[in-house]
């Protein structure tokens, strides 16, 4: 076997191993994100989720979506630090799950909290600053989710990156939304805000370039 052929063979084996790793990682993400969501909703429909299943579902989808967004934002720094480029292959999946949780959060608010009282739904979005902020963040995530398909990614070219930089704005808005939504216990929201700030500080150069 020539050394070239040998190199190619090693390369193929490596590529296969990485592909399998990505596949496994995606499987773990699907299980960890999807199963609890299904569990929560099935318990909530059966009235087995505490006295107020609506609140439980709202909290679970809200915090769950925020956790997933933070995880999404951790992927790039992790990949860079550990020179593990394959990690980037699961970033979109995590982002889409974060969006899906957000979608469940908004739809649950509409269907179970205000119970399709559209007038109240719109009034709450306009009148309540914390909901206005939350909806703004959701709108950003919606735009990012729609433009996450590869075809649009290619079509948008440079603008795609510009648009997707707004994920940092969304993360800050969600932290603020959380902070404003609690009655008095602000420790947890502040910890989340701190986590967002740490993740943004890891991208200091990129963000300052973007803002310039």
């Amino acid at each position, binding site marked *: 076997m020539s050394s070239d052929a040998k190199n190619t063979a090693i390369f193929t084996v490596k590529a296969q191993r990485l592909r399998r790793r990505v596949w496994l990682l995606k499987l773990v993400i699907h299980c960890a994100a999807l199963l609890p969501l299904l569990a929560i909703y099935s318990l909530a429909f059966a009235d*087995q989720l*505490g006295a107020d299943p609506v609140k439980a579902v709202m909290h679970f989808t809200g915090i769950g979506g925020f956790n997933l967004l933070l995880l999404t934002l951790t992927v790039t720094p992790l990949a860079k630090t550990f020179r593990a480029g394959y990690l980037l292959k699961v970033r979109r999946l995590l982002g889409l799950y974060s969006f899906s949780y957000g979608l469940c959060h908004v739809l649950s608010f509409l269907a179970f909290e205000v119970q399709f009282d559209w007038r109240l739904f719109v009034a709450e979005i306009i009148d309540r600053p914390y909901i206005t902020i939350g909806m703004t963040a959701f709108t950003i995530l919606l735009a990012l989710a729609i433009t996450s398909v590869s075809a649009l990614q290619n079509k948008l070219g440079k603008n795609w990156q510009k648009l997707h930089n707004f994920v940092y704005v969304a993360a800050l808005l969600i932290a603020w939304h959380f902070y404003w939504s609690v009655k008095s216990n602000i420790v947890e929201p502040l910890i989340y805000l701190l986590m967002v700030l740490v993740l943004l500080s890891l991208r200091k150069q990129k963000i300052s370039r973007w803002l310039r």
Partner: protein
Amino acid sequence: MLIKHIKSSTLSEHEVTDEATYLNRRQLLKQFGYLGAASLLAQSMPAQSLDFFSNPKTHFQRHDLAYQQAADTQQVLTPEAKIISHNNFYEFGTSKSDPMDNSQTFKVNPWQLSISGAVDKPYVLDYDQLFRQFPLEERIYRLRCVEAWSMVIPWLGFPLAQLIKKAAPTSRAKFVAFETLYDPKQMPGQASRRIGGGIDYPYREGLRIDEAMHPLTFLAVGLYGKTLPPQNGAPIRLVVPWKYGFKSIKSIVGIKLVERQPPTTWNMLAAHEYGFYANVNPEVDHPRWSQASERRLTTGGLLARNRIATLPFNGYGEEVAKLYKNMDLRKYF
């Protein structure tokens, strides 16, 4: 020779149900039922951690009470399991399930409730007297939380007016100040600002004397036929049905008649959000959410259509609106 005949109906010692099990029989049956239902629903997932009702932590011993039953009000009651598992009692933690989870070893006996201040005959009630001093009656009241959910609860207790009259208040008694037990050893929220939601304890509440003497204003020592569990404010708590729930202070140790409006906990924490009066009022929104409607928690899961209009004074306007005749309730919210 002694021949001992044993009849087949005679029970031997080992067949007797253990007293603890006997006293706990309803709870056990309930747990079997919920566990069964939950395991059917969710066989492969962490149902234990998600299913609050099968939580075996409700082991605080409650006792049956003798009381005069309320007339049938035709209102759909909130199930007991929900009333005792969905509580705002930050002394035991800020999430709704924390109070049940963290309060089951709470000591209510011995207890001392003192009635003092601008009165001629101050006195103290001990634990037993809380249930014996005044005849107990049942009151089925709507409880409207400032967070826009509500329940219908069958309380047991007596009117606050009886307790105050016994102390013979003087003419200087213009307000009534209430205080919750301060015991950081038993109440983790008082020991840690993080657990207790940043509130300065002890929790304090207050009423104007005419509000306190109103026949609807109630001191509850039980619910659903039994003494209160700690998470609902054992051994004695206030119930003011036309005001937001946070006015109905729990686990009271002090009732003091005073001349000036006393400081109250939520008002001190955020005066622009929580007023001293805190009358249920669909016209005055909380700065962060609407108070025009509420979700009534009874039975049914996510699909329960339980959003209903909130009524002025929580529907008790006929009885209490006259107390606020010449007041601007937008200003004094």
